[in-house]
């Protein structure tokens, strides 16, 4: 652990909440008060510190003033929107902002809900700073600088890791008295979680509820080395480093300008190599984008592409589209068939197409979408899985199915569930995973 050499010279500290999170609809003031009370209690449980909620007349004179702020908020530590920096607190001292603790109001603060950032875990960390602790490199420690997720469902039973207990006791000593461990005296006044404990409003889904770990992406595209996963009206963006720009999806309409209002499903997307234009297929139409704006003259009908199937019918929509880096050709998949195009100068369909998608051995014949990397491998996506076809090989001996959620979406490895013996007496165990 590390301390900064500053500590409060008193053991009775007051705290107040200046305002409440405005973004998340479920964290009501009662909840925030409950969370902060118990986050402070984690520190007073092991020291002789006592935390007292400031009276209404002393709200603006409390030692630890808690607030939710956005962007620049006049303390030299601007926030940066969702993700990135989450919160900060000022070390103890006799200066005006000492002890003050600020949370980024643009985070999706949550409690007992994995869809956002756990306010309790971050509050315990920040109060550590407000009491004089610096960041720790030890694991486990609540003072590690990186967000580590929620610390458990029962915040009333939360106990600091040993590293943090030693740290705070090096500043304020070991707790001597036994009975009172409360930030609000007496103990019986400790707030209980407001009821209902975790209200949800299904009719107004929060964007963060779009679960990237469930898979089922409508379209996937490699655009200038970054991978875009489209699902419903949202998309996720993965940088070249393979890191998600954010765990939370962004609204397609806020980034890709020019698609019709109400667009809630993209069929396929690819980047045209000849001029870096980006092609969106939606139903029986397609759009060509220059950067993030649709070009004039679009949408155009899908019939421009001449996607006539073996039985003479015209494709009504596109399932997958990609440029195979292996040969630079553009491939369009629809209805179990695929067409190949040359787009080096003007687009023209190669002779001998369509062909049946089943020519691509070991991969789904109706993929959600396909991309290629610079090395020429083709990645077929379907539901929550993907398959890699090595460059130039249509009929590999075996193509391994992999998890999109784990490998692309930074989701945890599903825990295999071992079931009891086969009821029909064959004696084997089954292993089931969410991706399998």
């Amino acid at each position, binding site marked *: 652990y590390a301390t*900064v050499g*500053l500590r409060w010279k008193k053991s009775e500290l007051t705290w107040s909440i200046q305002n409440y999170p405005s973004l998340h609809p479920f964290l009501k003031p009662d909840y925030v008060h409950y969370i902060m009370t118990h986050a402070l209690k984690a520190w007073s449980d092991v020291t002789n510190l006592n935390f007292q909620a400031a009276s209404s007349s002393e709200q603006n004179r409390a030692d630890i003033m808690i607030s939710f702020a956005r962007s620049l908020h006049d*303390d*030299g*530590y601007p*926030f940066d929107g969702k*993700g*990135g*920096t*989450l*919160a*900060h*607190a*000022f*070390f103890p*001292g006799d*200066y*005006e*902002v000492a002890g003050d603790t600020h949370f980024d109001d643009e*985070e999706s603060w949550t409690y007992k809900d994995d869809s956002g*950032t756990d306010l309790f875990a*971050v509050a315990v*960390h*920040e109060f550590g*700073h407000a009491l004089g602790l*610096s*960041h720790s*490199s030890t*694991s486990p420690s609540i003072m590690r*600088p*990186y*967000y580590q997720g929620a610390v458990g469902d029962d915040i009333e039973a939360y106990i600091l890791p040993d590293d943090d207990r030693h740290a705070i006791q090096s500043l304020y000593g070991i707790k001597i008295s036994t009975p009172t461990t409360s930030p609000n005296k007496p103990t019986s006044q400790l707030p209980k979680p407001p009821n209902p404990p975790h209200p949800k409003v299904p009719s107004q889904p929060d964007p963060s509820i779009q679960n990237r770990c469930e898979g089922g992406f409508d379209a996937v595209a490699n*655009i*200038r*080395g*970054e991978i875009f996963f489209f699902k419903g009206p949202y998309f996720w963006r993965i*940088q*070249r*480093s*393979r*890191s*998600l*720009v954010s765990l939370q999806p962004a609204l397609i309409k806020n980034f890709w300008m020019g698609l019709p209002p109400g667009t809630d499903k993209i069929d396929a997307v690819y980047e045209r190599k000849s001029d870096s234009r*980006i092609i969106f297929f939606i139903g029986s139409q397609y759009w060509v984008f220059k*950067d*993030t*704006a649709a070009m004039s003259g679009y949408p155009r009908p899908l019939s421009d592409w001449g996607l006539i199937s073996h039985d003479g019918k015209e494709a009504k929509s596109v399932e997958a589209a990609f440029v195979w880096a292996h040969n630079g050709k553009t491939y369009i998949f629809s209805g179990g068939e695929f067409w190949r195009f040359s787009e080096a100068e003007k687009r023209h369909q190669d002779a001998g197409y369509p062909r049946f998608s089943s020519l691509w051995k070991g991969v789904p014949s109706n993929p959600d979408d396909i991309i290629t990397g610079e090395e020429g491998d083709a990645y077929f996506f379907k539901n929550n899985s993907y398959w890699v076809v090595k460059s130039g090989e249509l009929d590999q001996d075996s193509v391994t199915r992999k998890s999109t959620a784990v490998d692309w979406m930074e989701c945890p490895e599903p825990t295999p569930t071992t079931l009891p013996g086969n009821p029909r007496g064959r004696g084997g165990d089954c292993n089931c995973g969410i991706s399998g």
Partner: protein
Amino acid sequence: HLAPMPDQYSRGVDWLSRYGYLPPPDPRTGQLQSKEGIEKAIKEMQRFAGLKDTGKLDSDTLKLMNTPRCSLPDIIGSKDLLKKRRRKRR
């Protein structure tokens, strides 16, 4: 517009400065960070985070740099503490 891929190296240097692993750039001298200094800072960051200290912006390091975190630096110098006091008083 769809920005080109951000310069991960310069973003990494910015990140290292922000969280105390590199001294902040000095506007008076315009002195650039040395390659050795940056590599040393990356190693320090990696050791602090429990990563293998390669001194390079490898994928694990970049991933951690993109992880949500506290705004305060990991390495706090006396200047940081003084800066905070002065800022609010002014």
